[in-house]
């Protein structure tokens, strides 16, 4: 499967493999409908591969990205293809290699820095914010920092408090940064490509549990020139009764909630934010002006969260259109516990979203 994607994305002149390609294509058609499937992991890997192929200035740096093929295999095969100068295994110092990456970006390279999880980015947060985000402004446009900081963000499964925090709200507050949060494979490919090509520093928040999930993917998305616009949210599901905003893994939960709500006669509109900063205020507000009700969903801590910002945005721009108070679904206000039952209660579940939507529609308390 991955071989085919690489095939399409890279050189086309593999005559010897055409037969194999043909057989695989037939096999695929035999198993599924005409839609191709791709995991988020493969989407990210192919995006990295294509961007590195297209621009020799792009290089990857992080712990275990080379020989180990990536802690989550996102950089699989890239060391073999591009060599150790462009796929750099680093010593254990996030502050160090984030600083090194920023220096390379000051010079003119385009680094993609991987944090094994964004929890570890806290070690490097000074470089991300003070050395990357603010540099263009502080230098009056003399220093641009075309760097991407990427890695898994938010809760995984059973990894406890120091491996489960969501950083969307923290980085989303910083002028000078762009913050992206893909959900599907199309999001992953399009947004990562956009991030790498962008002249500004980008924080790219992935999700470990989504890496293995497969999504249908079109030919247009598979093209190496594909990219998605930064700052544009996507209406995943149109509706007219209540707007549900979400990003990353919670988009999947929101869609499930919408299916459940549909059976009860509530037609929910689900917005996949895709970009946390700059927030697509116009899409969110247009939706709320249509539905008059809003539920925000996020995995992170509730105070000063993304939902709080969306709520303020809607109150500022569309107050008269609201028919009910804004409902905010977020992670529990506790460090993430480990035991499976406790963890389940600390992260939003589909039923939480369903209940919130019903409350917004005055169907229940």
């Amino acid at each position, binding site marked *: 499967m991955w071989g085919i994607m690489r095939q399409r994305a890279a050189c086309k002149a593999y005559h010897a493999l055409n037969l194999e390609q043909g057989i695989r294509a037939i096999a695929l058609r035999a198993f599924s409908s005409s839609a191709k499937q791709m995991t988020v992991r493969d989407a990210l890997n192919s995006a990295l591969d294509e961007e590195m192929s297209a621009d020799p200035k792009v290089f990857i740096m992080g712990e275990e990205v080379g020989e180990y093929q990536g802690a989550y295999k996102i950089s699989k095969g890239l060391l073999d293809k591009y060599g150790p100068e462009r796929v750099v295994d680093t010593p254990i110092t996030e502050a160090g290699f984030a600083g090194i990456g920023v220096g*390379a970006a000051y010079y003119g*390279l385009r680094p993609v820095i991987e944090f094994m999880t964004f929890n570890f980015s806290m070690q490097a947060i000074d470089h991300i914010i003070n050395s990357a985000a603010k540099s263009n402004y502080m230098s*009056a446009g003399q*220093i641009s920092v075309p760097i991407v900081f990427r890695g898994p963000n938010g809760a995984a499964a059973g990894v406890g408090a120091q491996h489960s925090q969501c950083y969307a709200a923290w980085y989303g507050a910083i002028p000078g940064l762009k913050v992206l949060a893909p959900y599907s494979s199309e999001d992953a490919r399009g947004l990562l490509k956009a991030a790498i090509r962008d002249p500004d520093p980008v924080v790219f928040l992935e999700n470990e549990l989504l890496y293995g999930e497969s999504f249908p993917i079109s030919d247009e998305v598979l093209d190496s020139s594909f990219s998605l616009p930064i700052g544009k949210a996507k209406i995943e599901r149109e509706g007219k009764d209540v707007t549900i905003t979400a990003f990353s893994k919670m988009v999947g939960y929101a869609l499930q909630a919408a299916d459940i709500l549909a059976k009860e006669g509530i037609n929910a509109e689900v917005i996949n934010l895709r970009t946390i900063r*700059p927030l697509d205020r116009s899409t969110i507000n247009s939706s709320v002006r249509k539905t008059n009700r809003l539920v925000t969903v996020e995995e992170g801590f509730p105070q000063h969260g993304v939902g709080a910002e969306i709520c303020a945005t809607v109150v500022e721009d569309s107050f008269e259109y609201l028919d009910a108070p804004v409902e905010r679904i977020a992670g529990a206000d506790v460090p993430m516990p480990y035991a499976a039952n406790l963890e389940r209660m600390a992260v939003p579940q589909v039923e939480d979203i369903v209940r919130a939507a019903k409350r917004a529609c005055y169907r229940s308390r």
Partner: protein
Amino acid sequence: MALHFSKYLKQKMGYLGMINLRSWSCCFYQKQPYLSRRFESFKADKQLGSLHNGGDPQVMNFPGGIVKFTPELKFLSDTPEERIHCYRVLDDSGQPVSSNFVQIDKDIAVKMYKDMVTLQTMDTIFYDAQRQGRISFYVTAIGEEAINIGSAAALGMDDLVFPQYREAGVLLWRGFTLQDFANQCFGNKGDNGKGRQMPAHYGSNKHNYITIASTVATQIPHAVGAAYSLKMDGREACTITYFGDGGTSTGDFHAGLNFAAVMEAPVILFCRNNGWAISTPVSDQFRSDGIVVRGQAYGVRSIRVDGNDALAVFTAVHVARKMAISECRPVLIEALTYRAGHHSTSDDSSKYRPIEEIEWWRATQDPVARFRKWLEGQGWWTTPSEIELRDHARREVLHAIQVAETVEKPSLKEIFTDVYDVPPSNLCDQEKSLRKTVERHPQDYPHFLF
């Protein structure tokens, strides 16, 4: 046999006070052939055993390389008997005491001296300007003129400079004018930094001088990353980064040195060890023999130089640069000096160090005076030249301040530019909104212009 050995150890260790190291090591030595034989014997693959130590029981090929064993129980000393020696070319009276230095011609030497005097003059007058309330803040490099100019003169214009904040002289050498310095300190429309930063936070792409940030030692890994990029580009240039004794305590110093060595980056790591980090003396900052010994710990070639000797600094940087570029390696230079001024205008160092100490260094160890003596000894400088230079520098600096003071502040639109490459819609909206507000309430915004 192993049981006996450990019992033996216990017995010996129990009488710590009586341990005769030699007798202990003799015992150890006796045991050793047994141990290594035992080690070899349970290797299934004889070849593997020979790969690991070549059949030699005195060494082992551990991860990281071959290491010789020793029966001596010897700890490396925490304090050396003698501190690492300090390279110096000129003595206190400007007489060469070394024949081992890079010769510089008259033009370069005179420019060096002129820039050292200009830097000293600029620092003195700008400091006073802050005291008078004309600028809000300033940092001087008093006592470190030789470090600033000596190092700058040995670099090429293609070498990328990553300063901390006490290296304005490097920018001066490269062509930043007194007016440019004054404009930045006043944050006016002429400031190429568009009034974005505190005074003395200079930066200029044109001069390959990366904009100064207040964060301490962050420039070290930046310099290494940029050096790595230079290497990938195959350029005949290096990067240089400056930091103080205090900056070497940070995590970034450690990561920067370590990475520079591992990545074989062409970077000069220049430490200005001036004895003080604000009020923290070096004795409270670290217990190593300064910074030079740390280079070896990271596998980085290093040297200690007299930071008040412009020729020594010049030579060290000149040679380090060659090594960095041709051998693709980092080089650490520790320049010993003294911070003769206060940390900044927010500091009064007489509160934590004796005034006599400050006076002594200023009077007897002035790097500018020492270089002048050498210059005069060469027949390249005279007293009339001195008077003329000092007078000229003073007038130029005062003029720059007077002009900078009258130039208007940057346009209000510069609040919103350069946050991103392309201004986002929310900032565009906010700018429109601000324009309307200023228009509507001009009395609240006198002199605030778009």
